[in-house]
């Protein structure tokens, strides 16, 4: 392979990106070296096993990926803003919507939610870390390496271009012979292993590490939704692992699982993809539901209405979500019985979802609502998400879906569920838990700009898509003619996307501004919270709780505050056992990345040789006898005194 096959050439946009990426890398390395920060990075971040730091790294990566996916989105909107534009050609447009979809779901939504779960769940259940801290670090590095591998595709070797769903036969070697779709198979496999490990980690953490007295029905609702999400991850991701393995075998080694040639079946790919894919959309939306519940209860100054019905609704949604996958391919020509059954199960999901909507509304009823930024996002979520849900029920009717399927109407639907359901939630969660992570609040005034620009821009961008969709515009069209009459709709939508991007810029500015200027004097409990994460200092100390809290009821902390019983006694302090840092997770991550890269290019000898690195990492890990260390009592006392005052 010659060098100009290796690097993607011939497009000024891509050349620009290549130069920009090169310069950024050199700049970063130079900056870190100049500031002498390598050691610090290695010690405090790269080798950390602290769930809070891992969470922050997830969030950082998620925001970066949001930027990348967002730029992809803007490019697509620019291309369709006017009829017959030649800004992107068909091939380039295909590559962009593919990377956009994959990045937004797997590398934006997933890490942002898993990041917030990492920061918050152990604190909410009064634990000192997750059950397997080192595995947690490995999860992060596998995700990160997978994401990076996927991201370089557009400059090295070529992007995948068969859609985020990568349907066969298009995704097979016969029709897409380049390395692009190898990236899809390999990078998602690596990241997926990390996610699966996260699922296992959080199931065990939540079952085994809750504070004394916190029985199941006294668990905070966000912990509940994280628990159910983790179960769904463990149930659904193995299906994707298998599907991707088949895809890799088909593409790299010439098997025929999904190609008709030797008796394979392309529909098997769709079937497996959606067996994972539908649960996946609930994996991203359930933790988000939990965040809204926490935020709405806190800022309405009331306990969550119908807590138990919320728990059952979440469990019900999760249960049904494994039984609806065929609604993504009603049109493949199933029997009437298949389509009817899956129509029914799909529509049934709207019932527990509706229960949740009413619970949120009743939580606010007669509450003393405080319109903080976190609360604003939750308020905007309810109507926007309801539009997404109602159009979902329309799509769920198999006969009608023959009209809607693969039109812009579908695209509008899933953006109306995913953006309010995930992105709004992540914003709410970030504003809400920011002080717990960093010890200061994000600015509320800049936050309002962020809020209004983003929400208005979002509706401007996606509302028109319902109408052009009903008017027959199919999805993934890279251009259209004047005579269709869609130009005004799509032009308006393109303007909306710029407004939404301005909202994102306001968020970035807010983060920058708040890091520099926000008051550091926010106390440990700035929102008058109800759950245990607010019972410790902000930012949370690395040991989380000097004394493990005991819980008697739901929202225990809220009542303890009223009773004046939040203090700790000096005599209760005992040395705290903490896990040590480890280099094996990042080493293994990089090793997987190298092997993955060679597999993408089908350089098998190199792949086999470099997989020795993985073996080395695993062996080193097995011989790691480090049992962690203890934080002595006087160190605990000193840290606690700093924010509690003298201990009794």
């Amino acid at each position, binding site marked *: 392979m010659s060098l100009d096959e290796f690097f993607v050439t011939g497009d000024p946009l891509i050349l620009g990106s290549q130069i920009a990426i090169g310069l950024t890398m050199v700049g970063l390395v130079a900056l870190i070296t100049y500031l002498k920060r390598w050691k610090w990075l290695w010690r405090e971040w790269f080798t950390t096993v602290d769930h809070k730091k891992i969470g922050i790294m997830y969030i950082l990566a998620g925001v970066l990926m949001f930027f990348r996916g967002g730029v992809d989105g803007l490019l697509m909107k620019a291309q369709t803003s006017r009829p017959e534009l030649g800004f992107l050609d068909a091939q380039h447009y295909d590559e962009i919507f593919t990377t956009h979809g994959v990045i937004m779901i797997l590398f934006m939504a997933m890490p942002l939610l898993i990041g917030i779960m990492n920061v918050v769940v152990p604190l909410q259940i009064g634990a000192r870390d997750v059950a397997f801290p080192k595995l947690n670090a490995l999860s992060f590095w596998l995700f990160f390496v997978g994401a990076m591998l996927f991201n370089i595709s557009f400059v090295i070797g070529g992007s995948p271009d068969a859609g985020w769903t990568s349907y066969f036969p298009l995704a097979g070697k016969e029709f897409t012979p380049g390395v692009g779709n190898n990236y899809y198979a390999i990078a998602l496999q690596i990241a997926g292993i990390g996610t699966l490990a996260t699922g296992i980690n959080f199931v065990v953490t939540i*079952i085994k590490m809750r504070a004394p007295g916190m029985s199941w029905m006294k668990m905070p609702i966000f912990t509940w939704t994280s628990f159910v999400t983790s179960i769904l991850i463990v*149930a659904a991701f193995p*299906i994707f692992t298998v599907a991707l393995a088949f895809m890799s075998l088909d593409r790299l080694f010439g098997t025929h699982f999904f190609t008709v040639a030797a008796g394979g*079946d392309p*529909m*098997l790919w769709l*079937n*497996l993809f959606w*067996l994972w894919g539908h649960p996946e959309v609930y994996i991203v939306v359930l933790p988000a539901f939990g965040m809204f519940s926490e935020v709405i209860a806190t800022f309405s100054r009331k306990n969550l209405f119908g807590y138990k019905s919320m728990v059952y609704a979440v469990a019900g949604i999760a249960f049904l979500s*494994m*039984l609806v996958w*065929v609604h993504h391919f009603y049109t*493949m*020509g*199933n*029997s009437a*019985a*298949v389509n009817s059954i899956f129509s029914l199960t799909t529509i049934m999901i709207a019932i527990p979802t509706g229960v949740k909507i009413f619970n949120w509304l009743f939580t606010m009823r007669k509450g003393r609502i405080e319109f903080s930024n976190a609360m604003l996002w939750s308020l905007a979520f309810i109507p926007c998400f309801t539009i997404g849900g109602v159009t979902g029920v329309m799509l769920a009717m198999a006969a009608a879906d023959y009209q809607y399927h693969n039109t812009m109407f579908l695209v509008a639907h899933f953006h109306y569920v995913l953006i309010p359901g995930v992105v709004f939630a992540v914003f709410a969660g970030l504003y809400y838990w920011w002080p717990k992570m960093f010890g200061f609040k994000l600015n509320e005034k800049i936050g309002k700009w962020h809020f209004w620009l983003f929400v208005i821009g979002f509706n401007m961008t996606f509302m028109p898509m319902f109408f052009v969709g009903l008017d027959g515009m199919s999805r993934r069209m890279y251009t259209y003619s004047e005579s269709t009459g869609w130009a005004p709709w799509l032009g308006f939508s393109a303007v909306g996307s710029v407004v939404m991007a301005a909202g994102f810029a306001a968020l970035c500015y807010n983060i920058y501004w708040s890091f520099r200027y926000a008051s550091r004097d926010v106390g440990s409990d700035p929102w008058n919270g109800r759950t245990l994460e607010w019972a410790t200092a902000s930012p949370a100390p690395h040991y989380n709780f000097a004394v493990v809290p005991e819980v008697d009821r739901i929202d225990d902390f809220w009542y303890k505050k009223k009773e004046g019983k939040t203090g700790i006694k000096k005599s209760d302090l005992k040395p705290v056992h903490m896990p040590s840092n480890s280099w094996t997770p990042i080493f293994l991550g990089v090793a997987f990345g190298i092997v993955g890269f060679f597999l993408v290019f089908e350089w098998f000898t190199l792949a086999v040789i470099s997989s020795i690195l993985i073996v080395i990492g695993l062996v080193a890990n097995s011989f790691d006898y480090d049992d962690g260390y203890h934080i002595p009592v006087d160190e605990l006392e000193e840290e606690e005194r700093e924010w509690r005052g003298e201990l009794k």
Partner: protein
Amino acid sequence: MSSTHSSRFPWNHLIGFILSIALTLLAVFVKFYTSFSDSIVVWIIGTLAIFQALIQLFMFMHVTEGKEGWINVVNMIYSVFLALVIVFGSIWVLTSGHAAMH
């Protein structure tokens, strides 16, 4: 559910022990002393194996024991349910409709 049977006679263990031996012998009997076809023998032995596993899990491995033993049970039932949905659901979806016509 309680783990205090040390003082009482371990009926559970005795019954479990006898049942597991009986099931094993039954499998041997089916193979050597009946004239069923091989595929039927495999089905019978497979079924016996499921019972054997259940006996081991409940009588010796005490899946239901401990404060949160029921979690194991729910977990196993859900896993089996999912496996059935995935396997038979996929077969049904991929073989009915237009796929059934050729």
